[in-house]
């Protein structure tokens, strides 16, 4: 084989790789890891409590990232509601009310939820480091979960975290000519046993597109993200 044809072949292979990566980047990526107790049906997720989601999005402009605190709060609420909707429609899972909002002067209940959210934030990097270990029942938040004093019928608690990026018009054009990360939303969802704190399910759906407007894509990403959770028989 002469050197010219070798170079041509390599160029074609590179082109194919770039096309493959571009195409795969446009689809929702999802990975899900299920605790053996769920797989063996020893535990069934029938009723859940969804804790307030924490999703942060930034606007990426030519002049750098800009905060979107109001849009982030709005998106957090939307993701939270959509998780409940998808679980209800696809898996017949009932969503129970959250821990009651603390009355004026009752700081303890507010602290309890905040501390438990922080505990999940501390555990999350360890889960993300080796997600497949959820299948080995390696991660737990301990029986402190009972201090949340949730509805006694709750089987699981859902924690939602997320980060996303919205591109401005200028940055979108720049990306077309120069390249760079597209707009996206990356979620990390942990479902924890409400009785002993074991991490039962971990899933991290990603969607490509404007996180503040891509409602259908978000729904699809969540549906795929919860695909492995067994459906509750009515």
């Amino acid at each position: 084989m002469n050197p010219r044809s070798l170079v041509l072949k390599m160029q074609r292979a590179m082109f194919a790789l770039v096309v493959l990566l571009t195409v795969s980047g446009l689809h929702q990526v999802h990975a899900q890891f299920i605790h053996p107790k769920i797989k063996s049906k020893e535990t069934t997720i029938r009723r859940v409590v969804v804790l307030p989601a924490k999703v942060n999005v930034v606007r990426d402009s030519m002049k750098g990232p800009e905060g979107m605190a109001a849009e982030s709060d709005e998106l957090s609420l939307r993701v939270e509601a959509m998780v409940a909707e998808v679980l209800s429609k696809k898996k017949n899972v009932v969503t129970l009310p959250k821990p009651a909002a603390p009355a004026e002067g009752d700081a303890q209940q507010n602290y309890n939820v905040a501390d438990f959210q922080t505990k999940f934030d501390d555990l999350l990097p360890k889960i993300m480091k080796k997600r497949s270990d959820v299948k080995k029942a390696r991660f737990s938040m301990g029986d402190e979960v009972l201090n949340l004093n949730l509805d006694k019928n709750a089987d699981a608690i859902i924690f939602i975290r997320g980060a996303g990026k919205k591109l401005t018009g200028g940055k979108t054009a720049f990306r077309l000519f120069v390249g760079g990360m597209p707009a996206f939303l990356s979620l990390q969802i942990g479902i924890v046993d409400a009785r002993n704190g074991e991490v039962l399910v971990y899933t991290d759906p990603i969607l490509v597109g404007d996180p503040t407007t891509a409602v259908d894509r978000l729904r699809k990403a969540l549906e795929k993200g919860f695909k492995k959770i067994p459906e509750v028989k009515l």
Partner: protein
Amino acid sequence: MFPRKPTNLILFALCFCIVFTSFSPLALAQKKTAPVEATPPPIREEFKFGEVDMEVLEQADLLDTRFERDGLVLRDEPVNAYLKRVGQSLIPRDLELERVTWKFRALRDPQPNAFALPNGSIYVTTGLMTLIENESQLAAIIAHELTHVMRRHTYMHNRSNRKKFLTMNVMAAVGAYAPGGIVGAVITVVTTVAPFIMVATIYGYSRDLEREADLKGIDMMISAEYAPEEMVNVMKLLNTDIEGENIRLFYNDHPSLEERIKYLSGYLGARADKVTHQMELNRERAAYFGTVEPLMRHNLQLSINAGRGRSAVFHAQRLVDFHADSENLFWLAEAYRTLGPRAPQLTEKEMTNSGKKKAAEKSLKRTAEEEERDLLATPGGKENWQKHQQLAEELYRRALSAENPAPVAHRGLGMLYEKLGRTSDAAAEYEKYLELSPAANDRGRIQKRVEALKEKVQ
């Protein structure tokens, strides 16, 4: 060699301009080692709000709401009033700043830290308030943060960053369409290197602002008649790094603590001619501990939740030394139980930058339970565990025999015995706790433990 084509000439000129402007601030930043004498006026009079600044302000207001809503702000009126009193005493009289409403609050976080939002909200974490020793040190922290607001640092930093990000993006575009030949190669090299220089200037500017806040902070402390040398002592306290988490990275947005101690000491020598008497500081310490004792206990719980056993032991011991009542003894016992098989202090090797980096990587790979299990498999870990469980048991017993015994010490003993495999003793202690605290928040959890232990016994 010079480019001949007009397009190449334009590209070359553009690159030259961008690189020239990129190098200049860096060079200036490097020359500025210790601006000892002249610090700028306390407020930036010439500052005019633009659209971009209004957006930053809006984000800051929303962040305030979020901290409140998410249960991160400590709802302790006496503590927040105390912070307000210290903060207000530092602000020059009759000072009115456009779009600033001063708010001083404690944030529920065991990590020592403080920050200011441009709208005038100053947050000091419970971790930092527990670490410091007197009101002058608290004033030092608040004075530093007040300077950030008064000198409009957040807005200035944001404006500067926007210019630098735009430059970086323009450079990336130029680099992507670089022509061939030597000119193209030069452009490629320049556009590849320039972002690193830009990032360095962003961090350099941030360090300059921190330095300014440190030095202006001393001026404000002197004006409010606080002991200014306590600013240096705060840095020294922060430098103790009990948990070994102050890792030096390639880029840093704050000057190193050693550097801060050095330039602050130099500046202080030139500004203050008297040093506060130690007795005066001791009195101040006692008053400070008396005021923030409940906050310190709250922070101990946060430290224990976060697995910061070394900090918990350090702070609980200080509390016991200050006031050896039942509750403080209980907290020291809890701290030793949490410390478990870990050593109370890090070794010299663990305190090196590479040692800290290794520990951070390891902690990402192991859960707290796995770390304990691994340590218990070593002779050192076993020895530590034995020592700490004995200390914890003794302290729980002392807490229960003290005046106004804390029932929660029974729960602590129960947890300790459960870990030691003393099933019946653990169940008995838990039951005593439930009997003495019928309205406890963790009643359900402890009841479940009792049931499980009783099942085990049968």
